[in-house]
């Protein structure tokens, strides 16, 4: 039985509802309708009263999840698109992010953000907001790139006593399939070496892992062995695994799909430079989307985000240094 990335997310929610009575789902159109992307398909029928349609009120939705968590529940919130979480931004960063630190009351909520670009989606249905949320203290930010991680990391997120921003990539929903679900993987906070190599390291996360792998394939034709590391969670960010990789390759490119100013790739470069300066044979590079809103037309969209072509080019540049 094969399973898509999207189905894995649905299955994980099934499992969470099935095994933990504290879990409930809250979001727009997630009940009978099964959600805009069908990530909750059938769940309201299987778990009556625990898969609840919300009004179009992202601020209040997050507030509700936090209140429920205070009472011991473990809500999973679905934002219809990551982009709309901007309306719940205040509750996320100021209420959820500070609750434990201020009051010693844990806040085990999981906020699912259907993230990232797909062709034709435009500036408000394509955003990757991991960098925004990671900047604020108190939030765990996970960015699964595989079917297994989509499944297990969602369950791990629900189990975690801290608020988790679960960035699931819409481009992977249908495109990414696994033949079967693997066993429980690494914990949140650990990166994974997806492909070992020795000439350079590409650090990526979410959909960009797959672009990076394709770039590694390309360069293999030229005889380069590119190591690919999947961050899996961008906060906590697994600096150690990165340092190990750089110790082997001496060269690193960090690829992210969000906007170029600050964010994950800058954080990775800043850490690596601070901690592995002596291991570097070349300056750490980064590659992000362009510094404009995300374009609607596929011609522009394809040029806006990093792709196998631009990653390959960047790597060639890095290898030449």
């Amino acid at each position, binding site marked *: 039985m094969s399973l898509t990335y999207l189905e894995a997310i649905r299955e994980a929610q099934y499992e969470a509802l099935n095994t933990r009575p504290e879990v409930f789902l809250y979001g727009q159109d997630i009940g009978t309708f099964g959600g805009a992307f069908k990530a909750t398909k059938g769940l309201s029928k299987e778990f009556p009263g625990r898969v609840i349609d919300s009004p179009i009120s992202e601020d209040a939705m997050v507030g509700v999840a936090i209140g429920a968590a205070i009472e011991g529940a473990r809500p999973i919130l679905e934002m219809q698109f990551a982009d709309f979480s901007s309306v719940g931004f205040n509750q996320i960063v100021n209420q959820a992010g500070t609750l434990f630190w201020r009051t010693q009351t844990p806040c085990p909520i999981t906020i699912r953000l259907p993230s990232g670009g797909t062709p034709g989606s*435009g500036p408000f*249905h394509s955003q990757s907001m991991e960098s925004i949320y990671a900047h604020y203290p108190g939030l765990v930010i996970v960015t699964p790139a595989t079917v297994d991680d989509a499944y297990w990391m969602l369950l791990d997120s629900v189990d975690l006593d801290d608020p988790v921003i679960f960035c699931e990539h819409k481009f992977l929903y249908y495109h990414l399939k696994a033949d079967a679900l693997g066993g429980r993987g690494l914990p949140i906070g650990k990166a994974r070496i997806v492909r070992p190599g020795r000439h350079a390291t590409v650090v990526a996360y979410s959909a960009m892992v797959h672009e990076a792998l394709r770039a590694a394939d390309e360069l293999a034709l030229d005889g380069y062995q590119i190591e690919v590391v999947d961050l899996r969670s961008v906060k906590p960010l697994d600096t150690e695994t990165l340092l190990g990789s750089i110790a082997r390759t001496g060269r690193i490119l960090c690829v992210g799909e969000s906007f170029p100013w600050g964010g994950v790739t800058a954080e990775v470069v800043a850490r690596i430079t601070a901690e592995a300066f002596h291991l570097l044979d070349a300056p750490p590079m980064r590659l992000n989307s362009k510094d404009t809103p995300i374009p609607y037309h596929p011609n522009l969209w394809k040029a806006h985000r990093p792709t196998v072509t631009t990653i390959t080019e960047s790597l060639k540049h890095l290898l030449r240094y």
Partner: protein
Amino acid sequence: MTTLEVADADWTPEFGRKYMAAFQVMQRARLMENKIGALYRSGGQVVGGVYLGRGQEAFSGGLGVQLQKGKDIYAPLIRDQAGRVAFGEEELDFFRTYLGAAPGPMRGRDGNIHRGRPKEGLLAMISHLGSMVSVVAGCLLARRMAGRLGDAVGATSIGDGGTSTGAFHEALNLAAVEKLPLIVSVANNQFAYSTPNDRQFACETLVDRAKGYGVRGWSVDATDLAQCLKTFEAAVAEARAGGGPQLVEGCLLRLSGHGEHDDAAYVPDAIRHSRLGQDCLLRAEKQIVARGLASESEIEQWAARVQKEIDAVVVQVAREPRPDPYRERWEAFSVRGMVEGFAE
């Protein structure tokens, strides 16, 4: 809360002319949307999703015909093709945006229902529901401050679902405090995507909110073009006369899915077959024929003429260039020199 009934006495020749004009707006909007729906289903040509206003033309167009381009501000939402036609948006803008042609007003940067020409008073919506209401308020405030508001109004619409946003609340409250000539039309089509009204709000009717903002509230059967016309005419006149914001709720059903990808299976048959489910365009057509304003065949001729125009535009747009990433100015700032190089 005011509901204006339309009596036979209202059917003056003048009203008949307005009715016919509004009908033609509705008809054109329907035909344009039918075309884009067909192109969407046949695949390949349309970029992005397609969200139609089928069934909402009387309500949307009824407001649109009260507005004057070059004078008023209009911020249409996703189901306002009729309002756009009435406001004078060019057909080319519609097709260029949907078909992703480079010369469109958004040049491939943003799509379909997000198109607009703010400098001409036609705002370009962002997706976040409720967000446009305050922007229209700001336009009006600035004009008043500059002493050039005159009797212009600003209009925008929102769905039943959009009324649950904080943005809607903040903006309507603020507009009421400033007593701005703002018309907010609430197209209560009973569903927000799949979510029925009873999961969206608990008040009896949305126009019950008007009093809580201190604004005038109007309620209308939005499948009836005559009522829409009469009500919007009165509401817009009141706003122009300094009566402050006007909240107009129209009750209806969208006669399509949320988008063309959606079959709207969640809409119960009972509602579909209720008064709410009437097709405003058919109702208006019957009315026109019954009142002897035009014959069925005349109406068909109008449609044929519009259809020809539409087909010609589509042919033209299909030949136009698509956006070219190499010629694109990848800068979000208007001021040159503000942009920085991100070393890659």
